[in-house]
């Protein structure tokens, strides 16, 4: 990431005539961004969009400076946040908590120090710490997929489900999915964890295919997992029997939906670009009087061959 010259930024900041806003005294404002590192597709996309947003905003607002830290686990993330506060004097923190519990008190401490806090995607365990909450709609993610299954399958049809890493987020999605297909007469044959990982999903799907002779559809609940699932189905030569719904809008999958692939009828969004939304709103609050506190929930939409074009980002890693 290009580190801007702080003095230059400050000088430019001084040149900007202070508009009558909260604490706009023309000095450089520092925004810290703490996110998990790019360990799978979705987080890779999230990292990409975070860097994009930061580059764009540094261009737009010379008086803003950004510190980006990516962490491989909750402990490292806490250290990153402590360092930002101690050494970089951040004015605002945008954080996607690695896990809710361990990050709650460190982020609480940041908020108590008078620093603006924006929480992304996963809520903290204690309500009311953050000034701004930006998230995808996990319940909607499961519900939209479930409704599609309920509408497009008939009573007595069999489906299998691959779940993500065991987390509250995964539980929310699966519970909403189960609620949406309730009463439709669809049999859920099995639910196992594929851990949002291609290889694990491939193995689980191979075993499903050995175990069940009649599967009509698969809810893979994530596009990384969908890739593994499709491969296992192809190996068994059962492409004609079942269709697959992933989620989160990986570009390769979207490309196939655009082509009208019968195996991949639809997808459900859960945009990794939500981090850009969070950074943009935080920056807006820092540089202007625009009120940006509250909750911003990005809806989960259904991607179909008709609208897939507008969800296709060929430059993103995801």
């Amino acid at each position, binding site marked *: 990431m290009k580190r801007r010259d702080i003095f230059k930024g400050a000088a430019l900041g001084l040149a900007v005539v202070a508009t009558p806003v909260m604490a706009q005294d023309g000095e450089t404002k520092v925004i810290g961004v703490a996110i998990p*590192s*790019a*360990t*799978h*597709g979705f*987080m*890779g*996309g999230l*990292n*990409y969009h975070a860097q994009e947003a930061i580059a764009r905003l540094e261009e737009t607002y010379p008086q803003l400076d950004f510190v980006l830290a990516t962490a491989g686990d909750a402990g490292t993330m806490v250290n990153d946040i402590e360092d930002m506060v101690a050494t970089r004097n951040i004015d605002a923190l945008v954080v996607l908590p690695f896990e809710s519990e361990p990050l709650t008190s460190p982020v609480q401490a940041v908020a108590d120090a008078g620093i603006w806090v924006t929480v992304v995607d996963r809520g903290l365990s204690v309500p009311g710490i953050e000034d701004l909450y930006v998230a995808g709609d996990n319940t909607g993610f499961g519900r939209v997929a479930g409704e599609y299954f309920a509408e497009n399958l008939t009573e007595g049809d069999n489906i299998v489900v691959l*779940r993500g890493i*065991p987390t509250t987020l995964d539980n929310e999605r699966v519970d909403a999915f189960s609620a949406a297909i309730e009463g439709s007469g669809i049999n859920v044959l*099995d*639910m*196992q*964890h594929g851990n949002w*990982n*291609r*290889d694990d999903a*491939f*193995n*689980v799907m*191979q*075993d*499903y*295919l*050995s*175990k069940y002779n009649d599967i009509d559809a698969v809810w893979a609940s994530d596009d*990384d997992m969908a*890739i*593994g699932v499709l*491969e296992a189905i192809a*190996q*068994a030569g059962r492409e004609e029997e079942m269709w697959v719904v992933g989620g989160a809008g990986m570009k*390769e999958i979207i490309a196939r939906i655009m082509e009208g692939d019968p195996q991949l009828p639809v997808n459900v969004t859960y945009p990794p670009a939500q981090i850009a939304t969070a950074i943009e709103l935080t920056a807006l609050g820092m540089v202007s009087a625009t009120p940006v506190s509250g909750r911003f929930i990005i809806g989960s939409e259904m991607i179909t061959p008709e609208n897939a074009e507008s969800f296709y980002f060929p430059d*993103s*890693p*995801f």
Partner: protein
Amino acid sequence: MTDITASEPKPRRRVNLHVLGPVLALVALIILGASLNSNFLSYGNVTNVLARSAFIGIIAVGMTFVITAGGIDLSVGSMAAFVAGVMILSLNALIPSMGIGVPLIATGMVIALATGFAAGFLNGFLISKIRIEAFIVTLGSMGIYRSLVTWLADGGTLSLNFDARSFYRPVYYDGLLGIAWPIIVFAVVAILGELAMRHTPFGRHCAALGANEQVAKYSAIKVDRLRLMTYVILGLLVGVATIMYVPRLGSASASTGVLWELEAIAAVIIGGTVLKGGFGRVWGTVIGVLILSLIDNILNLASIVSPYLNGAIQGVIVILAVVLQRESKSAD
């Protein structure tokens, strides 16, 4: 796959539990699986499980030599991801000049082996010549390779060109006489490994070095070179495993090969190799790999317990397998 176990030469007069422990555990698992699901012993399922095991299995054979010689390698999972990334990038880059065909894939395979060799050599060099603890060196390189593959993939996924993939796919999915290629390669690697461990000076020297470095030195064993060799062989085998892995999903990302090193080490220990070195058993390692894969497979096929507990069951079986071997040890 019991033919591999049958390749054990000169069985000892005393049949003791600590040789048979892992075999018994494997037999028990097979009986359990067959009783829970009629498809368990079907051709399709057996092929799936063995082909899946091949990656960890090929790596674990190399790990057996490293551990026998008193070393450890924590970097193999990241190394596999890195080698896969380099291989995919090279293949994609070579398509315009070489076209899609056997020469392209052969070049990719050579690149994978060369990358694995180089990565193994680097580990081995730092450990044997610069004399840094193996645990520390490979812990460091584990992070390095994992970061490098993330960087190569720009935080996303490296995907092989679609047409090249269609051409390369049979390497994982097809086989000879109905036996999938990964299974054949795994079997060949395992048999060669077993022969090397039992019937060559190299295997005996590894055990001598792991048992007592000073004594090995006085016995005119070139200790440094031997230690370097074990890491180089492991690196090469990571390359071989990657050659099998890439055609499966045609992609590599930061999540490729996560925790493979621990699975490989666990397989080696279940198989009866001593963690602190001095004694290794390649056929035992093969049994260990199969035990680990079968646990996963049976849990998927049977859904007897909450999937949250899969890890716990694996843990219990790993510890049990080792405890079974210990009992007779104390009587010796």
